């Protein structure tokens, strides 16, 4: 029985091979950023 397989490529895209054998884009994972604020609070 086939099971879903997730592949993380070098560009940050995750592809999911579904149980029907078709590739679908699961989500765009290119959104990590630092948690910096330029302007602070008084």
């Amino acid at each position, binding site marked *: 029985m086939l099971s879903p397989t997730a592949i993380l490529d070098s560009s940050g895209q995750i592809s999911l091979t579904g149980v029907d054998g078709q590739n679908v884009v699961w989500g765009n994972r290119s959104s990590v*950023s630092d*948690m910096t604020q330029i302007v602070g609070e008084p």
Partner: protein
Amino acid sequence: MSAWRPIRISSTCALDANGNGTDSSVIQAIFTAILLKNKYNIRVLNLSLGRPVFEPAYRDPLCLAAEAAWKAGIVVVVSAGNGGRDNSQGTQGYGTITAPGNDPYVITVGAMNTRGTTDRSNDVMASYSSKGPTTFDHFAKPDIVAPGNKIVSTLPAGLTLSNEFPQNQVSPDFFSLSGTSMATPVASGAAALMLQQNPALTPDQIKARLMRTATKKFPQFSVAVDPDTNIPYTTYNDIFTVGAGYLDIRAAMNDTVVSSGYALSNSNPGLERSDFADRR
């Protein structure tokens, strides 16, 4: 008196010059730290970064990489996120912890505003500090809070930020920034000091001591006014805002309690690590 080992700082490239990256670039950096752990005696990993949460932590690649470092014996310290003012979902900033700060193993750090003084009694929560619980899993986060507002630190030569925001430069060698990105290394430094004092401590024991000894005394709420927009933001200092409390490094260093077991951030009473593992 015994001689203490020096603390050294190593860095691996997770984000680009603009502070942006991908899951894969961060995962690669984490795995590099794991691979080099023994060579350079890497004991603490600071991750001042995050992205929105797309799924439960137990199947999020970024969280799994952070967990791998934790299980390799590295204390992983992660920023909570800067979404504390975000009301786009009508939650008043609750439920805005970013990944991998939503992982129950890691130490997730929120930001306090010291108001530019060394007196802790006038410190308040920074209103932009993300609040729990985590989405999907409902873990109680952040774990602790630490100074993160207008933090002055060393300025590397050629830093992109210093070129774009010269008003934040306080001297040729120092720069001021805010955010949970700034609070996180304060907690990382505390963990490094604890390990310098006692290298036998495990990541779970470090986390337990930091949380146990954190100051629990907060005002019921505080109000911060954005200097640009003049919009006031009220922050209520509940468990999803301040976690176990305000980092107290001296208390953590003096703590002698050796906890056993694990220090998973809790989602409901009685949840054990084995229960979490069983869900995989």
